């Protein structure tokens, strides 16, 4: 387990945890049961091609965003801890987690760390101050949650015939069709009057 993978494991586990105690409806398995840490790491490393310039000359064809994501998550966790905004005790990291501060936060505190990174913390404050696209941090945080969630509930994160997330949602998968036609609320729309066009329509430009 690398630092990057293990830190991302702490992320995906907080979003879709294993819930052995939950009822059958909900499904006990979580994101780590389908190795979503690996899916998200790969997705972040393949999010976009590397621009011309220094990153490419280092040999990267795509942006190495996954290690950056892991670093940022730890940065956010550290800020949460230092700012005393943590609400639950630190815990020993899960078996597949890395050893950094993000991996030691309770699940909801991990989300609070993300909120600092995108909205309330140091990075957003720097973004106000400097004329550089620091808001890219917020973009990556949004991407992390979006990708984790979409992958957890689709074949993106589990390419089995019936992915785990589809099973947990009780979604039967793509079908050729459904006989659910109940007629028409309106048979045809009418070409109704739209009044006379007003004359203040647009000379402003």
């Amino acid at each position, binding site marked *: 387990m690398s630092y990057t993978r293990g830190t991302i494991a702490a992320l995906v586990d907080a979003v879709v945890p294993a819930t052995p105690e939950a009822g059958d*409806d909900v499904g006990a398995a979580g994101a780590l049961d389908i190795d979503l840490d690996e899916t998200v790491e790969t997705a972040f490393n393949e999010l976009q091609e590397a621009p011309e310039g220094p990153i490419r000359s280092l040999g990267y064809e795509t942006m190495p965003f996954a290690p950056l994501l892991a670093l940022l998550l730890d940065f956010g966790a550290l800020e949460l801890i230092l700012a005393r905004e943590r609400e639950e005790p630190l815990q020993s990291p899960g078996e597949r987690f890395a050893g950094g501060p993000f991996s030691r936060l309770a699940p909801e505190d991990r989300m609070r760390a993300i909120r600092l990174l995108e909205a309330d913390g140091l990075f957003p404050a720097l973004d106000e101050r400097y004329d550089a696209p620091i808001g890219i941090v917020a973009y990556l945080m949004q991407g992390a949650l979006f990708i984790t969630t979409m992958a957890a509930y689709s074949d993106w994160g589990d390419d089995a015939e019936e992915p785990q*997330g589809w099973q947990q949602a009780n979604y039967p998968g793509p079908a050729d069709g459904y006989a659910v*036609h*109940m007629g028409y609320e309106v048979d045809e729309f009418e070409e109704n009057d*739209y009044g006379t066009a007003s004359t203040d329509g647009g000379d402003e*430009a």
Partner: protein
Amino acid sequence: MTGSGIDMADPDVVVVGAGGDAPALAWRLGQQGIDVLMLEAGPFHGNEQFPNPHDDRGNAASAATGDLSGDLLDQQFTAREGDMGSPVDGKLRWGPADAERAPWARTVPQTGVISQVAGVGGTTLHYYGNHPRAFVPAIDDQPHWPIDYADLVPYYQHLESVHPVKPAPTTPKAELFFEGARRSGYDLTTGLNVDDEGYRPFPNAIHQPDEALARDGDYDGDFRDIDGDTLACHEHQGGPHPRGAEFEDRAKRGSLVSLVPKALDTGHVEIRPNAFATQVLTRAGPGPLEACGVAYRDTWTGRTRRIFADCVVLAAGCIETPRLWLNSGLPDDGWVGRGLTTHHFDFVSGVFDSETLEDIIGQRKVEPHQGQAAGSRLDVPGKGGIAVNTFAPGITASVMFSESVNGFAFENDTSGEPWDTEGRITGTKLKEQMSDYRRMLTLICHTDDRPRQDNGVSLDANTEDEHGPVARLDWSPHPEDDERRLDLARRSAKLLDEAGATHIHRAAAAPIFLHLQSSMAIGKVLDAGGEALSVDRLFVADHSALANGVGGANPTHTGQALALRTAEHLAERYFDGVADPIPADQTPASADD
């Protein structure tokens, strides 16, 4: 010209992009005998010239409807969510056709997600076929448009008859929505021209379903022996149904299956996929500057070429059209790329118990995965619109529960609000919500956000890919846009509550850039005929040409209507005019012509 690998030697018009709107323009030009070469950055699906579009380059171009293959479409469009729609490695993404490569870069220095698709058909490969006209007051009363609503009507009518556009069928989830709307006091709208509140089935560019698919009937076929929509709800995944049908008979009328065949059929249109335009070529003209061609790069071979033509049309979408403009060093008076509108989406969902559902719709689940993805709506001119928007679980989880500007539900106090939870949901709570997927109705709010010069596309001079500096996107809502959105979210919650929802959730969504309009607006960057004010012979025919967000109605109907109109202006100004003007027909459009 043939479907084999060489460029049309000497096109009259070169068009950048073959997405949602460009095929409408190309078709109209082709009808006038004008030779059009379309350069498309992404792949061409369902085409014999490109049998494995994500693995091999295939031939260079396609110019004949005989190349189009329903069988290939069936193979390529699996209807699996991730396989089709992963923004990173799905078949429908903003990136090169080559599956081995990563998506193309954009700089987005804020919370947000972009959803655009590269490929013939563009973002309509994902779209839900929703084709409402603009709200009348958005054109006639807002100050942005240099033309009247009446000028668009003949083009709307034309598209309504050719796609065709028809009232969506009622399905159980639509009936649940209608009942909530009725109980909230809204009336049914039956007119195409909307300037008042009301609910209605969506005017959709989706073939109506076979009558055999009646819910209370006894259809037990295999859905390959019927015509029209199979109600499979796979619009987002490319929507190839009905399986086995001819290419052009697929139910969802995205540009790929509806307008592209018509354009090719004129015998004057050739489409070259895998061709990324990098430069608009200009020369000094009688005016200050005049466009004369385009340079592009083959995305598989890296080879660059120049194509010269009498006119150039940009239709690369709201982000890439201004990027190409700026990378070409064309003049900018401050509005190039600016004034972007994006409908400031929100999402509100309700979960229902089985008894309530039994009462209202005669079945014990909502079944969001059955029936058209978006078949019913509520119009609120002046504020925007609300629509049923349903998805398979992956997109449901991500749009409903993973993106918000209001933090996490576990921190948000919702007392006094019409929703039970607000913001992102994670952990056990997310799993609980998703286990209710089949009893959930999800609504989208499309806000009538207004054009502002601060919002839009510029170049990120520090980030350059093989096509030049990449686009940077900045967009934030004005407080008035936030207010309109909140109003729509509250109406959505009320509607769900009236229908009997037991748990209502508001996403308070972070920007999802998926409806994009007005970044190269007519009246600002373009004249009323769609031609650039500062460069002759250069036109724009995608949603960036729209003067605002059309009030919050889904934009593609207006984008395509305007593209048809722009084609006619181009033909009038630089060729022999239009032989068969589209008539202003005040009678309802018919599906049969």
